[in-house]
């Protein structure tokens, strides 16, 4: 990954001409690696016109064939990446083809999600792309579609989350307990041990991403231990995300903004 200045513009002009000829999807400049364009306008929405100025890199996704359960067939072949930086922040737009919108969790059902992974330290010998390696941490910003739905206003209720579920009684949802009261919170904690130790896999949230570190497969951890509940404002990275469905096919675009200091060694 490297940043380039406005020298990208002539390329963009050619791309725009081609768009007129092809008619449907505008042809864009492509690069052999992710190239971050310098701009004072770091977009936070995937449909921001500023993205048109950034070249696109079609990143082939690697198989996870290191640890069980190995995935020997790709479900998504590649992800198209663009990047824009203002020198202090960097935004990535990830785009991939997806026939279905999966933003409801369930047994043996997994939601749409994606992540941007950056080496914790920029050095000549970069960590393995499969979640880093021992002594060579990677920092991961992970986005999940159900968290996004929650941030976008989907209520955190059993009915919304599991439309076909039939639930007799959850003590912490009981009418008799006033929402937010000490008794209700105590009940919710007791019956949601994961939430009680700060592992917020589901539930209300104001941030659709998770800030993680890893040093190899299976080591993925939150930046907080079990006894420190992470608060959204604690998250070191400023992450703004958005996704949208294009007509005819589901196309998710996610913007990650991160402080560029992590990429300092790569910027030219």
């Amino acid at each position: 990954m490297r940043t380039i200045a406005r020298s990208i513009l002539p390329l963009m002009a050619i791309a725009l001409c081609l768009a007129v000829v092809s008619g449907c999807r505008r042809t864009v400049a492509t690069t052999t690696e992710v190239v971050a364009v310098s701009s004072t306008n770091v977009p936070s929405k995937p449909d921001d016109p500023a993205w048109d100025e950034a070249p696109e890199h079609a990143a082939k996704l690697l198989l996870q064939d290191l640890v069980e359960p190995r995935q020997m067939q790709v479900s998504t072949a590649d992800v198209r990446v663009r990047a824009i930086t203002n020198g202090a922040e960097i935004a990535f737009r990830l785009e991939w083809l997806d026939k279905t919108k999966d933003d409801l969790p369930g047994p043996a059902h997994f939601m749409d999600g994606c992540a941007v992974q950056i080496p914790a330290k920029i050095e000549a010998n970069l960590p393995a792309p499969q979640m880093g390696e021992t002594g060579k941490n990677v920092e991961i910003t992970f986005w999940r579609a159900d968290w996004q739905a929650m941030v976008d206003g989907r209520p955190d209720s059993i009915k919304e989350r599991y439309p076909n579920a039939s639930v007799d009684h959850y003590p912490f949802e009981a009418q008799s307990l006033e929402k937010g009261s000490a008794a209700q919170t105590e009940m919710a904690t007791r019956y949601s041990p994961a939430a009680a130790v700060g592992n917020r896999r589901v539930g209300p949230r104001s941030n659709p991403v998770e800030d993680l570190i890893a040093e190899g497969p299976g080591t993925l951890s939150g930046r907080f231990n079990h006894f420190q509940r992470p608060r959204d404002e604690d998250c070191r990275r400023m992450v703004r995300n958005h996704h949208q469905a294009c007509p005819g096919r589901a196309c998710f675009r996610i913007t990650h903004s991160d402080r560029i200091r992590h990429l300092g060694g790569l910027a030219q």
Partner: protein
Amino acid sequence: MGEDDCSGQVDGGASFSMEHMAWFYYLARICNHCTYPGCLASCPRGSIYKRPEDGIVLVDQGRCRGYQECVKGCPYKKVFFNMMTGTSEKCIACYPKIEMGIQPQCFVNCIGKIRLAGFLSTPDKANPDNPLDYLVHIRKVALPLFPQFGLEPNVYYIPPVHVPQAFTSQMFGPGVAEAVKTYRNAPNDPDLSSLLGLFGSTEMIIPRWKRQGDWVAGMDEKGKEVVRVPLREPILIRPAYDKLYQISRTNCP
């Protein structure tokens, strides 16, 4: 089918015919806290661990990310994905109770008084004074469920006696015939029947037991008596009509 709890034997017995006579039994299934847990092996994150001090297998609720590999990996289907927490959860063997020397809740709650929890020795160290060693290793009357899975499950069942053994031997292994024979003979076997009488007699874990004549005692590690029950509970016959309260009561035979 052939009998009724309150009215006794039904004339003519079962009134339908099939490949075989109908039979059923209850099979209370909790996590087996296996010696070689399949759930633990299947978790790519190492979120499942077996406690060295008591062998209890737990899902770390702080580490689990809901990949549900353990749900697939447990052949006993004893890990469940909890959609309300987004993590996988399972029986915790009521570890806070075990830590206090108390039997787990589903053992204590059992109204049939047919469950007993404790610590089992390895077969080479079987101690006849330990109730579980006596039942599992010495009398071999309690058997593991689906031992052929190879996980060495740590819940042992006294197999149902009315079920065809072609069926139960698939579930509990080749020891079924002997176990059923031993169990059926319990009325003539004061040691075995007295130990069965200790089931459900106390909430405490009783690592030691001893029969003395018509009484059996459950004891702690040091041999201090925790509970004492008679070999035969006294039978009380209530008259069908209660003169005091002027009411009829139904007695089951």
